[in-house]
Every structure is written in C-alpha cells, then in structure tokens.
C-alpha cells in the first residue's frame, strides 16, 4: 500500500493505482484521474456513470460491473464504451475512486 497526491490531496492507492479508501475521493480527484486516463473533460454523461458507481459501491461495498452500470444508469453499452473508450471497466472504477470491479459480467 502506498500513497500518492492527486489534485492536491494525498490518498492511499494499491499497486495498480486504484484508490483503496472511497472516502478520500473528491470530484477534483476524479477530474484529475480522468485526465490521466484520457477522458477529458468529464461531461454530464460521464458524471452520471461515476455517480452511479459511487452510490452502488456505497450500498454494496464493491465497484459495479459494466452490466450493472448499464442496467443501473440506462446508459447503453455502446455509449458507455464511447464515453470511456479502451477499457471502461478499469477506467470508470479508477475515476470513481473504487477498486477493480469484482464480477465477471
């Protein structure tokens, strides 16, 4: 376990760079990670996904899977991959300050 400073705040991250404490997450951190991931700027549609993930993780303790995201937000699979191209599962989880999604679907 290590720490890094994102958007002026020191947070805990694991070996793969995922934040380990969702409570340390801020919207500024999300915007900063999104820039690193090449998803910039975060539009309203992006935020809708991030906010769903935050809520879902708060309720279940786990980062939602892509299918849970599409089912929960009404965002289509096509749109989700367009919003977060090249690997939405990891990108969305990272930007939302959560761990890797644990489910397979």
């Amino acid at each position, binding site marked *: 376990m290590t720490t890094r400073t994102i958007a002026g705040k020191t947070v805990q991250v694991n070996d793969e760079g995922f934040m380990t404490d969702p409570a340390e997450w801020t919207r500024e951190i999300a915007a900063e990670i999104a820039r690193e991931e090449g998803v910039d700027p975060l539009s309203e549609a992006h935020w809708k996904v991030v906010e769903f993930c935050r809520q879902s993780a708060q309720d279940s303790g786990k980062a939602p899977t892509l299918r849970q995201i599409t089912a929960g937000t009404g965002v289509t699979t096509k749109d989700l991959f367009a919003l977060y191209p090249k690997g939405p599962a*990891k990108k969305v989880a990272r930007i939302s300050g959560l761990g890797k999604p644990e489910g*397979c*679907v």
Partner: protein
Amino acid sequence: MADENRKIAFICSKGDLDMAYPALIMGWAALGNGIDVTMFFTFWGLDLVTKKRVDRLEIAPVANTSFKMSMMGLPTGNLGIPNWMGIIPGMTAFASWFMKTKMKGLGVPPVREYLEMLSDGGAKMYGCKMTVDMFGIKQEDFLPCIESVVTASDFMDMTEGAQIIFI
C-alpha cells in the same frame, strides 16, 4: 502503455450451451480492460450466432462426466446422473433449463444479449466460410453481430499479433 493495443481472438467451435459462455465471458472482460476482441465462429459454434439456434442452445447430461446430482442441490456428493437417466426424453431440456436458470440467478445475460453487448463494446465477429458453405447458412440467417463470413486465411491475417483461444 505500449502503442500497440493488446489483442485477443476466440475461435468458437462448439454449440452447446455450456461451451457458449467461455468466449463471451472472457471476451467481455477483455473489452472492459481495453483489449481488442475478435471472434471467429466455426462448425457448431455457428449455432451461437444464427437467429434460429441462439435461443435454443442446450446442454446434454448424457456422457457428461462432470454432471453430478449435487448440482441440483442434492446431498449426493460425487454421484453422477446415470447415462440411462440422461436419455429419458426431456432430460436435455431440463438440464438446459436448469443451467439457464442458474446463469440468470447470477445476473449473466442469455447468449443473444451477451453477443449484442460484445458487439456494442466493439468486438468483431465473423463466420467461418467453409462451414457456412457446408451448412448452407445465408447472411440473413445470422444475428446482426456477424460482420461477414471469412476464410481461415482471412482470420489469420486479421489476428496477427493476437493471442488466440480455441474453444
């Protein structure tokens, strides 16, 4: 990150319900992780992508040594489903229904919907020319996820540098 994107290709040669899922699950995981996915459907695997077969995939308990009574929640340990029982009319339908119910319980979508998700996520899917000719399948028989019918040689060209998984 390397400039060249990681690529993975699946050759789907089986049309049984249980053998439909490995490529779908791994392919979906690959797309979620930013890996390019190509799927090539050949021989019985074409059942997964033909309109009249995709919703009727089955799993037969006959000669399947992994099929155990305990899968149905019975406290029977390693006791298998006897083959003579597997040939009773309706057993294959029952086993197929049972597996579909289990999958649904886990939130796993049916094959048709899964293919649509993969296609929407950017997976490229192709039918095998030789088998298509042999089975007499037409383009309109396929689900819309199938882009075209290609030869084995085309498949080799389009999967250069990819990791290939045969199922």
